[in-house]
């Protein structure tokens, strides 16, 4: 069967968050629940030279939802077996079974499971399973004004774009084998060496 995956071109992402809002609209998400999140990485420095400023500041964005991993750490650790993986790879949380213990949120290195206070259970990106079943793309993929996304079978995407599954600040792909291929921004390697902050963390962890 297919192994569904995202392709994300970080070098094209402007950080506009259209993908985040498109997802919120489709799934009617409340404040504080973002199935898709955009992380802004900024690093570098400003150096003063007489009256001039020299900047080697760099910045880029990474848009993440859920990577529907091959070895999902959320699924492995969920006490109620609320998380299951479909044949096509989609990892889903069954809201009727979930107890809202938030353990999956603790362990997922991508921040995918999000606790929805209104219903008291964990929720996350479902790869727009209803659209996928109709042969369409997830809504975030088709929403991007910069055309930074692609979607499909992992191996086909790998052939089309080459393989890069890691870009700072994501963890090493060996941990959960995420189904995402990323084309890194030109500054990603520098970020990997310098460990800069994610500068917009307040937008992701709801205040």
């Amino acid at each position, binding site marked *: 069967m297919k192994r569904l995956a995202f392709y994300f071109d970080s070098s094209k992402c402007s950080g506009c968050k259209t993908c985040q809002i498109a997802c919120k609209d489709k799934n009617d998400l409340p404040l504080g629940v973002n199935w898709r*999140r955009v*992380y802004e*990485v900024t690093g570098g420095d400003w150096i003063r030279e007489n009256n001039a400023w020299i900047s080697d500041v760099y910045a880029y964005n*990474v848009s*993440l939802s859920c990577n529907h991993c091959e070895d999902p*750490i959320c699924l*492995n*650790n*969920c*006490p*109620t*077996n*609320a998380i299951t993986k479909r044949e096509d790879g989609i990892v889903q949380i069954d809201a*009727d*079974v*979930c*107890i*809202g*213990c*938030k*353990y999956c949120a*603790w*362990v*997922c*290195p*991508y*921040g995918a499971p999000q*606790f*929805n*206070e209104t*219903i*008291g*259970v*964990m929720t996350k990106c479902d790869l727009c399973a209803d659209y996928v079943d109709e042969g369409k793309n997830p809504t975030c993929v088709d929403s991007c004004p910069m055309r930074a996304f692609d979607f499909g079978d992992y191996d086909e995407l790998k052939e089309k774009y080459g393989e890069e599954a890691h870009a700072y*600040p*994501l*963890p090493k792909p060996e*941990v959960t084998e995420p189904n995402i291929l990323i084309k890194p921004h030109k500054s990603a390697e520098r970020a990997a060496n310098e*460990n800069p*902050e*994610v500068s917009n*963390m307040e937008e*992701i*962890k709801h205040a």
Partner: protein
Amino acid sequence: MHNNEWSLIFFTLISQLSVGILLMFSFVFFVNPNYNESQIIWWKSPELLILLLLGFAGLISLLHLGRPINAPKSVSNFAGSWISKEILSLIILFISIFVLYMLRWILPSPMWLVKLMLIISSLASVIFIYSMKHIYMIETIPSWNTRFTPLSFFSSVLLFFLLALFLMNDQGGVFWRNIIQLKPLIIILIIFLMIQIVLGVFQQSYLSGMEKLGIENISFTKGMYVGLFCIKMIILIVSVIYLFYLYLNSEKMDLNSMAIMSLILILIFQEFIGRFMFYQSYFRIGV
């Protein structure tokens, strides 16, 4: 750092308290099976006390859930999830203590069966704590996935064990007669607390080395976290000093004095601080 996980702080500490009391009771029972419980009112039925504590802990842990009504489903993944294993072992522990209660207080039963049940319960309690600590041994959470976590959890059990022993005094004729015979226990307690101080320092220095790992520039060397660490260390050091004093002046001390009670309370308080710091130190790789 986030997670003010009050219900889990209480759940883990009260669970460890229960296990500590259980192990203390087992220890006392095996060392001196003829001790007379009846004279100490609160010690009437240790099993009921432990069951009460475990039940209370369990209920508190439900507060942590978003949908507690589904709680029974939480044992479903006993093959893969340590939470399921923990809940399962808690249930087994609960049942075995209940059986123990039945054997000792309701049904007539031979001593060997009681002793067997006691051993089973004690083992179950250890497995329970083992499962509990394993929940936190996640490869994506480097601040928890260390040797310090099981050390901390079992140390709590040991501390409660020792403190419970400390309190296992009588108004006459039970275990310890007066404080002089507590001297070995005091030495053990001093050594234990000194090990806690050393471990605490090692853990703090280990965590401080994590500043470069994060995307959020987490810091274990500034603000509330290091403040709490200092308070915890101060409490431990003061306790060690007081215990030395107690050891050297044991003839004059009254076992039920305010000072002793305060010592016990403050040691329990630093356990709270420690557990609070544990949850505060949550830090996950990735984003």
